[in-house]
């Protein structure tokens, strides 16, 4: 079964074959490397750009305006902060032209911590991107969702962010969550679509026949149903929330865990239905905690569900410090981990006025 990088690669291939993707580009995206995380190996429209994020985003916009669906990669989202103006502009073309133009592009970029990436390979991008109007935003936590959300980005007529939690790049699908059409045996799939080590000049991938299987924007997924409280997360922290919820069963705590998957639009009806039932909600993400997207979700929660809450809604997020330090001891306390998530769920479940 595929891991997330392979799922992305397969979606990009389907994008090229069936949805008119003409360009997949960015730093080291084309041969010989095929991406810092190998997500773009073997793709026929992949090419290497200059080391210039502004050029990458700008060229992506230009291609989009010319009707060329494209996927532009920022190698790490940490390096996209010199192009926020261009990203805002991409999100504005339809609106500023009063509906005359649209800009069908996908900005793909790895986000978050988990690989000891130190200050500049650990940034989150959800607070920044959710504050940019005009973009749809996907952030998957499983290979199948990565596949389906990336295809949704590609076919959408609007600019989309496809944010990839880098710590989950190598995590494999769970049984029952495979991408339709992918070979069941990991080694078979690897042989088919992973570039060999060494010389790759004559290598060609063998793509499995995978159908479109789009995961629509704005549809969250309830990963675990529960009665006592609602945990809403996405990306790297999502599987940790599930793990914590499962461990807490033996303490008699039954948490519902929702994978938001799409950050804009987001599935408010699923969140509110759940919070109405449980009366308690914890939002978990790893961006730094001042002016954080989870705070928006809390605002909406108190705006609409205040009188149905049994306890204050909670946010567990990254520390408001300038970066994530390299040492293990630093990274661990800078962003939510299994223990802090478990504690937060437990204390919210038990909190009394």
């Amino acid at each position, binding site marked *: 079964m595929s891991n997330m990088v392979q799922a992305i690669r397969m979606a990009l291939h389907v994008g090229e074959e069936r949805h*008119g993707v*003409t*360009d997949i580009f960015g730093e080291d995206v084309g041969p010989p490397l095929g991406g810092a995380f190998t997500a773009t190996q073997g793709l026929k429209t992949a*090419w*290497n*750009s*200059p080391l*210039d994020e*502004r*050029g990458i*985003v*700008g*060229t*992506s*916009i*230009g*291609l*989009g*305006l*010319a*009707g*060329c*669906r494209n996927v532009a990669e920022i190698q790490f989202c940490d390096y996209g902060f010199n192009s926020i*103006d*261009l990203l805002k*502009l991409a999100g504005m*073309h*339809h*609106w*500023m*032209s*009063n*509906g*005359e*133009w*649209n*800009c*069908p592009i996908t900005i793909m970029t790895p986000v978050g911590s988990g690989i000891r990436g130190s200050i500049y390979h650990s940034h989150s991008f959800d607070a920044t991107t959710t504050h940019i*109007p*005009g973009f*749809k935003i996907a952030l998957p936590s499983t290979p199948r969702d990565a596949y389906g959300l990336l295809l949704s980005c590609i076919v959408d*007529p*609007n600019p989309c962010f496809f944010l990839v939690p880098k710590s989950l790049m190598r995590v494999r699908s769970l049984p029952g969550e495979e991408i339709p059409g992918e070979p069941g045996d990991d080694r078979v799939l690897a042989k088919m679509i992973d570039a060999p080590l060494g010389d790759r000049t004559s290598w060609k991938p063998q793509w499995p026949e995978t159908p479109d299987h789009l995961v629509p924007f704005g549809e969250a997924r309830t990963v675990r149903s529960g009665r006592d409280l609602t945990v809403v997360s996405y990306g790297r922290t999502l599987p940790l929330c599930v793990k914590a919820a499962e461990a807490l069963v033996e303490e008699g705590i039954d948490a519902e865990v929702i994978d938001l998957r799409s950050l804009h639009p987001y599935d408010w009806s699923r969140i509110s239905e759940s919070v109405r039932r449980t009366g308690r909600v914890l939002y978990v993400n790893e961006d730094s905690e001042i002016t954080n997207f989870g705070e928006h979700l809390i605002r909406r929660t108190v705006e609409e569900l205040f009188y149905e809450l049994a306890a204050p809604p909670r946010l567990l997020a990254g520390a408001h410090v300038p970066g994530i330090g390299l040492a293990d001891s630093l990274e661990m306390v800078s962003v939510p981990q299994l223990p802090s998530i478990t504690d937060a769920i437990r204390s919210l479940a038990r909190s009394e006025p």
Partner: protein
Amino acid sequence: MSTSLRPVRSPPASELSPDLLSKLHSLMVKARVLEERLIQMYRQGDGFFWIGGPGEEAFNVPLGLLIHKGRGPQYDYCHFHYRQSATLLAMGADPIDAMRQMKNSATDPYSGGRNFVGHYSIRQWNVVPVSSPIEVQYSIAPGTAIANKRAGGRGITIVTGGDAGTAEGDFSTCLVWSSRPANQLPVLMIVTNNKWGISTHFQGQHGEKRISDRGKAFGIESKTIDGNDPEVSYRELSAAMEYVRTERKPFLLEAMVSRLYGHSSASGANRTNDEADCIAGFERRLEERGLLTRQQMDELRAQFTAELLAAHKQVKEEPQPESKSIYEHVFADRDLVRGDG
């Protein structure tokens, strides 16, 4: 004034035809009258802000006439500066639409009353929305140029900007991306050099003698021309475009122009008298050569003035956008740029 690396295929040495000259003249005057009308609108409170291109007509009109206008990558993509009403008029735009944008009316076809005047957007002619942020168009241009090149044909990408704006990294981005050996791009980069960025003079800020020299290191054909002369502009633009259309490679063209009403209404929009007026110069020559009489030219101007005054009156009567429209067009529900939209 040429600073070309090696001679570009020479423009025709012959004179432009009398018809073309009078067309150039007529459009230049029309564009000037439009800008003067827009300034009047500002003064009369029919618009919050004016910015435009009086002083650039001698360059911008030929540019508009030479553009292959149409929709999609077979045609030219236009990434314009905010001083190009003359280019748009030469392409065939109706001046009343600029006045609608000036008045931020619901009828403004470029932005529905959302954007400043001069911020054109015409999908049918590949005119992408003009951006207020300076120079970002230079980072976007390589994208449409890739599409032009891939489409085959003679369509090119044209990107324009001011002199001061070349200090932004985006200008460098365009030089780098359009000259990549892996994929040289058919981009005509234009810098309209009026020697000012708002109140800041060129002199203290630019170590380059000519901005066009910046193309040379990249092997980009580059030239500086007198943009105050419509004949020179027409010929040099023809030649530069022909090069880009056929060689499918970039060209950097710097045009020296005037700024006749200051930066914008923010600086008063008053007529300056210390800069060359391209229309006055051209009219002198047309008269000397016996192509047009002073009277003909006066009549032409009077006619445009009357037409645009009437248009101004009409625009005053048109509705403002509805408040709730701010939520419209945040997202597109279909693909306009690819489908038949």
